[in-house]
């Protein structure tokens, strides 16, 4: 009996069995994760090399971070990672309602994370920390005549550039993650997944955990290296 006919409609025509398709999907996702790790990894290597070249200026940059806001963000993102893991377990057991609930809270917490991130960026803009076009004069000296202002040294602007690159890339990946979670919620609500077939949920879970991993290193290497 040709195995293809008995399997349900989820089996794509180029695979023999559902198990082979699921194994291929997981392998493919992890290969893609390797490229994502490398994509963000290059930023961390550049940050590490530049920090090694200018330790003093980068320390001054780190000490200007709002690390309490960072703390709340990290707490939120660790919680969302926990919730997504529970959702994956629920999907494996097949109770879709729990999956939808957990994904919904994750998306809301993610939105919370991004609002805190937005306030942080706004505060830094106010303090004149944004490199490039914007003024690099600390706010407390903004009213002084030009010759008494001394703008931030070039290396601190480089630190702020890395800060914006890392947090900006992370924010973009978080938005993509939240988009994927919402589509998964929508598809689960439509009853597309069951205990025997929920590979897309697995893959979205892997992606969200990747976003969480990136933030862990951003927080501990950019915010907390203050001494």
């Amino acid at each position, binding site marked *: 009996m040709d195995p293809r006919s008995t399997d349900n409609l989820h089996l794509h*025509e*180029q*695979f*023999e069995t559902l198990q*082979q398709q699921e*194994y*291929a999907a997981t*392998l*493919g996702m992890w*290969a*893609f994760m*390797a*490229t*994502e790790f*490398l*994509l*963000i990894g*290059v*930023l961390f*290597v*550049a940050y590490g*090399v*530049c920090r090694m*070249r*200018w330790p003093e*200026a980068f320390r001054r940059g780190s000490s200007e971070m709002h690390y309490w806001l960072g703390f709340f963000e990290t707490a939120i993102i660790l919680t969302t990672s926990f919730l997504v893991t529970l959702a994956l377990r629920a999907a494996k057991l097949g109770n879709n309602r729990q999956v939808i609930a957990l994904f919904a809270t994750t998306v809301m917490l993610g939105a919370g994370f991004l609002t805190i991130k937005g306030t942080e960026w706004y505060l830094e803009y106010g303090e004149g920390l944004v*490199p*490039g*076009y914007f003024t690099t004069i600390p706010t407390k000296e903004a009213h002084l005549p030009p010759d008494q202002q001394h703008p931030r040294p*070039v*290396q601190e*602007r*480089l630190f702020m*550039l*890395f800060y914006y*690159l890392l947090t900006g890339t992370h924010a973009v990946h978080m938005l993509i993650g939240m988009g994927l979670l919402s589509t998964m919620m929508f598809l689960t609500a439509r009853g597309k997944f069951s205990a025997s077939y929920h590979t897309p949920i697995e893959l979205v879970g892997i992606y969200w955990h990747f976003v969480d991993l990136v933030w862990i290193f951003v927080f501990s290497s950019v915010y907390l290296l203050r001494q």
Partner: protein
Amino acid sequence: MTTADYIPDVAPLPAAIVPTNYLTDKESLLSWLLTTDHKRICILYTFSITAFFVFGSAMAFMVRLALLTPGGGWVTAETYNRLFTMHGVIMVWFFLIPSIPATLGNFLVPLMIGARDVAFPKLNLLSWYLFLVGGVMALIAMVSGGVDTGWTFYTPLSTTFLNSAVLITVIGIFIAGFGTILTGINFIVTMHTMRCPGMTWFRMPLFLWAIYATSVIQVLATPVLAMTLILVGVERVWHVGIFDPALGGDPVLFQHFFWFYSHPAVYIMVLPGLGVIPEIICCFARKRPFGYKAIAFASMAIAFLGFCVWAHHMFVAGISIYAGLAFSWLSMMVAVPSAIKVFSYTATLYKGSIQMTAPMLYALAFIGLFVIGGLTGVMLATLGLDVHIHDTYFVVAHFHYIMVGGALTAYLGGIHYWWPKITGRLYSEFFAKLSAPIIFIGYNLTFFPQFVLGYLGMPRRYHIYPPDFQVYNVLSSAGATILGIGYLIPFCYLIWSLKYGPRAGDNPWDATGLEWQTPSPPPTHNFKKTPIVTEEPYAYYNRKSPIGPA
């Protein structure tokens, strides 16, 4: 040379009842543009990279014309810089990197492992569209002012001191990079999960080992290029300084990241070529490859060691002595697997029954030229010598020997070898055997004088040069014209064979390998019944040696 007219095993079927195949299944334009059939995606890729190859070689020819005279009056400095930059960008990212993996690889990987299609067919189509969007953006950049940073985009030149269309090119290559990543992921997962029963790893053809190693490099190197080019884009737009020394950055850091991608990228270009050659040699020498396991593991060794050698591009760029010593030795070590491959291919010919068809001519030419390219690479990796010959025409000659003598010759050999399977037609052996020597002579006349130019000290990317280098430049430009004509001939008779070529049977060369067990051109689902593999690869010992279209 009497060309025995070829008597196909089975008389050509009347056109009426020819079984439908992947070309004649659905013929609407939309069926081609939205296809998820790996064979059709191969055809799409073949047309697009041939177009880019024509673009790239036109620019190369203009560069050679400009170098005929020391005064370089034919083009101004700006045009010359834009010409060699676009020649580099187009040839590297839009011809050589996709040339064998995306065309022959796409067509043959599922066929050789007995699968119906690649693991992610939709992603396969997406990778072609990403490649196309990237290519179009590069052409837009060329039209809107061109890029004159060299294909290496060295900073701070590319970020602060040039106002050419660098940003569009950078984004174009970024997008095309993701196309390469998707192809890489596709092949890795396909080869791991979709091999037919009996097809163990050591029963796979050596072409698949090479494609697997290439895919590993594609997946693990391209993201680093993507982020590095994004950083260049960020620096151009917001004038911030990771690589700009005036703003605290370090230009050598860019070179580290760029070459971390670009050296493995040159192995993306040559490894598939190293995979095509054993297929052709074993078929036309009717023998098993000498040291199958050695060749297979050499491919993987090249893939890994290729990531540890990049700083041999930077020996004079101000890196420390210790880093220079470390990278020089590692570069020597990456040459050892290539040497193993060359000796194994040569040893395969021993006691064989060699038939000199066109693919065999290209394969043997490949071995000779690849040895010269490899050994000059070892000279460049020698620290003391590199100080003198770095960034001169010696380097230009070295990498053209590997890319044009190696990758392009293997690509032509592969196209000729699998042409009957892809199109179901036989090309004309006479013209094929006529064009191969012309290409070989024109090629050597173009690039061998450049070795001498390099040792004489003529730097790269010069539109005017001191008169005492002129003799070699004129020789090289003469060779370029012969090479240009040489490349036109296959272009003509292959297209001609599409309509007037005799019909090829399932296995015109009587070769082993699953791809020869389906009708050619194969049906859309490759195999009527999933094949079972029982014998080892290249089992030519229990087959006759047909005269075939000698």
